[in-house]
């Protein structure tokens, strides 16, 4: 259960209106004013295409006035009715909800995840995913992260990418062998900005007394993966295709440096 005072009243009211859900996707709008619209659209398309019958919600962790201004993050309980029933097509049977957890300043990743986990716990979500507000997010990737947890009862779903040989050197050559040696679990992408998980894992992590620790607040993703592995929960990897990198300043990326 979430801490009594952790969630804002406004968010609680939104969650009350949503009610129990099957699927929950958390996405942070931090520094993503240009791409959040695409990401939300991709998530909704994924729901419409792969989860037409499920009760779904998108939890947007917003970061203040800038996000509000662009109008995209306003919570809503109703999807605009744009479908013409005379032209049957792929659609969701249910309302696709968006709720917004708004912070006055951009919250650290750990706080954002804490909020998503609390929402998942309160709404009794069966399968969840945390996604980046990326411009290249596609509906099938969203589904790939949710399906193992929803349909096959996996508790942690790590992404698996096709990478350039100079991409992800740290993850491939250091983190992966180390975690495999320590935990005996072959998860290649422990430090990822997108992953899926079950409601059970969400509750387990939420109830850990770690959320004030600086390391968790800064990089909670690996901690969550390790929590799943260490708790003997069911973990899997799902192939998401080629890993695309956000544009970076020349020389600041190890791939560029090695070219």
């Amino acid at each position, binding site marked *: 259960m979430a801490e009594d005072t952790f969630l804002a009243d406004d968010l609680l009211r*939104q969650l009350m209106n949503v*009610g129990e859900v099957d699927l929950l996707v958390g996405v942070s709008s931090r520094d993503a004013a240009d791409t959040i619209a695409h990401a939300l659209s991709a998530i909704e398309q994924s729901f419409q295409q792969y989860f037409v019958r499920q009760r779904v919600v998108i939890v947007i962790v917003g970061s203040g006035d800038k996000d509000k201004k662009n109008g995209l993050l306003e919570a809503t*309980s*109703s999807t605009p*009715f744009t479908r*013409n*029933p005379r032209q049957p*097509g792929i659609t969701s*049977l249910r309302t696709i909800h968006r709720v917004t957890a708004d912070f006055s300043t951009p919250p650290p990743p750990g706080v954002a995840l804490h909020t998503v986990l609390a929402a998942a716990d309160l709404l009794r979500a069966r399968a969840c995913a945390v996604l980046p507000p990326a411009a290249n997010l596609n509906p099938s990737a969203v589904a790939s992260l949710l399906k193992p947890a929803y349909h096959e009862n996996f508790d942690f779903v790590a992404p698996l990418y096709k990478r350039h040989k100079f991409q992800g050197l740290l993850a491939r050559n250091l983190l992966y062998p180390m975690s495999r040696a320590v935990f005996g679990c072959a998860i290649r992408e422990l430090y990822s900005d997108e992953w899926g998980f079950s409601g059970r894992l969400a509750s387990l992590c939420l109830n850990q007394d770690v959320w004030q620790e600086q390391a968790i607040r800064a990089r909670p993703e690996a901690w969550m993966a390790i929590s799943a592995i260490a708790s003997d929960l069911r973990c899997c990897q799902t192939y998401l295709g080629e890993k695309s990198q956000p544009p970076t300043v020349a020389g600041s990326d190890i791939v560029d440096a090695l070219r």
Partner: protein
Amino acid sequence: MALQRDNLWYKDAVIYQLHVRTFCDSNADGIGDFAGLTRRLDYLQGLGITAIWLLPFYPSPLRDDGYDIADYTSVHSSYGTLDDFKIFLEAAHSRGIRVIIEMVLNHTSDQHPWFKESRSSHDNPKREWYVWSETDTGYQGVPIVFVDTETSNWAWDPLSKSYYWHRFFSHQPDLNYDNPAVFEAVWEVMKFWLDIGVDGFRLDAVAFLVEREGTLCENLPETHAVIREIRKRLDISYPGTMLLAEANQWPADVRAYFGDGDEFHAAFHFPLMPRMFMAVKLEDRKPIIEILEQTPEIPENAQWFIFLRNHDELTLEMVTDIERDYMYDEYATDKTMRINRGIRRRLAPMMNNDRRRIELLNGLLMSMPGTPIVYYGDEIGMGDNIYLGDRNGVRTPMQWNSSLNAGFSSADPERLYAPVISNAVYGFQAVNVDAQTRSEHSLLLWMKSLIKVRNAFRVFSRGTIQFLNPSNHRVLAYVRQFEGETVLVVNNLSNSAQAVELDVQRYKGYVPIEMFGRNLFPRFGNLPYLLTLGPYQFYWFQLRRL
């Protein structure tokens, strides 16, 4: 109690749909008849309904439950005589109940004298009364309606060695409305019944009257011209009578059948019905709002007719493939329950006999824009028999009491046109009118009170609708308004208790009065109005400025 003079009576009506055969048998032959129906009119008057819609009672080989008419101006001998019908009609009118009858304009039975003449030779004067062809290649691409039984819309006639056109069963040849003589003959038939005193016609399969090459042969301008001419003659010679369209189409397509108020008086809103069932199962108001927001405005003198169940399958023509699959999975898990593109079940079994859901759906039916139709037996929660074949499972004898044959007939049970429902849950011993009349909290008495409230407020039949769209999507809330009347309807579509905040700023200062108990609720103020609703609960509030 005489009929009130009001040419728009159909807007305020609560209609009860029944088949004479199913209602009450007066002569112990196992088949319901007009004399039996006349005896039961007091029951219908007590229920509060104001009109009866009769399914076909004409002479017929009954290969399509009477929609295959062999004589338009008589009564099937099993149901009595024309005089019996006249007595029934007069008795209904004397109780303030109007009568709408079926008229099948699109086709006749192949046993109708018109068709017998038409097929007798190529030179017969009635040859052109039907649609004949030397080949079966015309009107390619026109959909087949009864996909379970028909493979083509053309049928070979070995007698005249040519093909005839039929949109429904092959024993129902389509009339040819390109021939003016057909129209005049049909008008004579309608005049026959109007002169007797019927109050309206439900015109069956109106979308298919005229055929044109290169089209789907549906909703053609020529079909509308036929309807306009009938309406014109009706308005001149028989004001106060009405035409009801059976056009299983999207609202935007049906809208054309109202014309500029010069075609049909009323039409069924087919797509709304499955979406009410869907919304309750999904616990989400989306399907209902979605279809109503896409329903076009209709002329002032026109009306939608809405229903939950009827004598046919619960049609799933007007839903997407995804929605149809969902409906099948949720409401027709046993494939025997499915027929054509629909579900052959009654209301109560579809709701698993859950009284709360049955009440909620009836509450929606009575409070949505349109004239509600109650299918016989649904007011007591009758069950069905999906093993009877075709759609006969929802056409079993009315259950009046727990005596022999449910009080429907004193014939030997083997002689009944169909067996009465006798299973442990829905059997006539448990579900019948007598028992429910004696029980203070029965579904029947609850239905009476619902209809009574509905009849007391014209806002339900003529009012506008405005959705409130609260954040809680499990709650469907709308305001109906007509002249000085304002009603707020709040429905919890879910299986669990819900809290909802309603934005009623527009009605600030109004006092909501719960319409069944007449209890006052707190006045609307500046803040969103908080309501809590139990599972499947609904409220009707009359809003008054006090």
